[in-house]
């Protein structure tokens, strides 16, 4: 049980980093990134590329973590002038383009077959690294969220024009958030690659993006506790369906389908009855009467 728990915690930590990255983009800034899996995949594929071409692991991590924010800027550069639902389509498409490229150009990292990368032999070490990464991103996101910057990002979420007439450059802020959060997601990707030891395109489909979205929307996109709670619930549901299938005697494929359906239902119900998620944004109080 211990090893499985360690593995599960590692995976949950990785997904939590992705969720925090989406929290910065969507929860704070209001950027609808339907290609959240892209920076994750870029991080993982940087590692895979290095492994496939005999480069050291740190080089792979470097490639992934640098390339992801650059791609992010490329995608957001013109897209920042688009309405959010267009940007959603652009990011969705960009993620798919990346996956299709990896699938159809085997020179990069093995095509459909994928590539083995160095795998952490010590599961505890992997968990500690994942938790460390989570802690770093968490502290970063918390510092940003509670700062004047976080306040201005929330203004951007509410009304870009307001931010502009107040003398801020919305695109600069959006670029900054994209770069920072895509670095996070890419780092998660690098770690994920070394945890699973194997990278292939089928790990980075549109569905992965929606697992992250479900978690973030369920927990409450605007708070860190919210997205963490959402991730834990979604990932534990995913893990526990294995046990539920055995325990209940229902066919596994039915249980797997029900699980996906449950994600869908969660998205719908949360928007209908609890649009702010399980943990809504906390009101920051100031003493206005002090002299």
């Amino acid at each position, binding site marked *: 049980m211990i090893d499985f728990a360690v593995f599960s915690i590692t995976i949950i930590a990785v997904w939590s980093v992705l969720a925090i990255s989406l929290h910065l983009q969507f929860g704070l800034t209001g950027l609808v990134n339907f290609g959240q899996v892209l920076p994750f995949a870029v991080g993982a594929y940087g590692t895979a590329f290095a492994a496939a071409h005999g480069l050291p692991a740190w080089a792979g991590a470097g490639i992934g973590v640098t390339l992801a924010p650059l791609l992010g800027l490329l995608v957001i550069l013109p897209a920042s002038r688009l309405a959010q639902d267009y940007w959603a389509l652009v990011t969705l498409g960009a993620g798919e383009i990346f996956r299709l490229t990896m699938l159809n150009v085997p020179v990069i990292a093995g095509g459909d077959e994928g590539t083995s990368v160095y795998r952490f032999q010590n599961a505890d070490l992997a968990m500690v690294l994942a938790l460390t990464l989570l802690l770093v991103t968490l502290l970063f996101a918390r*510092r940003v969220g509670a700062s004047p910057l976080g306040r201005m990002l929330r203004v951007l979420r*509410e009304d870009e024009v307001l931010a502009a*007439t107040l003398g801020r450059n919305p695109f600069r802020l959006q670029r900054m958030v994209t770069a920072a959060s895509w670095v996070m997601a890419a780092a998660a990707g690098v770690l994920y690659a070394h945890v699973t030891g194997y990278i292939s395109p089928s790990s980075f489909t549109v569905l992965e993006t929606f697992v992250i979205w479900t978690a973030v929307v369920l927990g409450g996109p605007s708070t860190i506790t919210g997205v963490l709670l959402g991730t834990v619930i979604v990932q534990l549901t995913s893990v526990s369906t294995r046990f539920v299938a055995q325990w209940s005697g229902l066919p596994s494929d039915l249980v797997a389908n029900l699980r996906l359906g449950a994600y869908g239902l969660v998205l719908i119900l949360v928007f209908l009855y609890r649009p702010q998620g399980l943990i809504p944004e906390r009101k920051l109080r100031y003493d206005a009467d002090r002299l």
Partner: protein
Amino acid sequence: MLTVCDLSVSYGRFQALRSVSLQAAPGSILGLIGPNGSGKSTFLNVIAGVQAVASGEVRLDGTLVPLGLPERVAAHGIGRSFQTPRLAHRLTVFQNIMIGARPQAGERLRSLFLQPATVRRREADIQDEARSVLRRLDLSHKANDYAGMLSGGQQKLLSLGMLLMGHPRVLLLDEPAAGVNPVLIERQINLLKELRAEGRIILLVEHNMEMVCGVCDRVVVLDSGAVIAEGDPDAIRRDERVMRSYLGEPA
């Protein structure tokens, strides 16, 4: 001195503004009136940079103000409020006031992580200033309410307060009195007079003639995107063309 020269805007064949020119001196309130669709809001939008422009130029004390770039316009000390107030609805009144302050060290990642002390000091200053602005608006008791929960009149006051935090030299106000109760209108009038006394330039787009006549030093009348009259409020009241374009509105 704010100088607007030959400002024209067109959408396809429709001319929203036809070479509008005007001047406003520091410590004065310039009223901008005209029937609906006469181009008043477009005029403010162009100066504030919210709207791309076809031709013309805007200068503040001789310096050219860039057009179509709201964030750069704001840096020149020009602030605009909107007819339907633009606010961050899911932030509190106090936070809304604070975001008006500029520049904020805490909005740059580098200072946020490398100069926390500077950030903290600036933040404390902003809070102090926000308190005084709230007192000036008489909104202190609403400080911790969400901006979206305020009444229309209070929202207008709030957006004025946001502007004040940026110490603008020019205030572009879009119908601050529309749909606002008389008590709050009175408070706004007093506030505008104070601001004039501080030497700011105020462009006031307003339908409420009582307010216009009460505070404006000069009034410009727009119709179909062109200036049709200009003068002191009393002269404008008597102008025949203005009466005609306002048709039915008591002059």
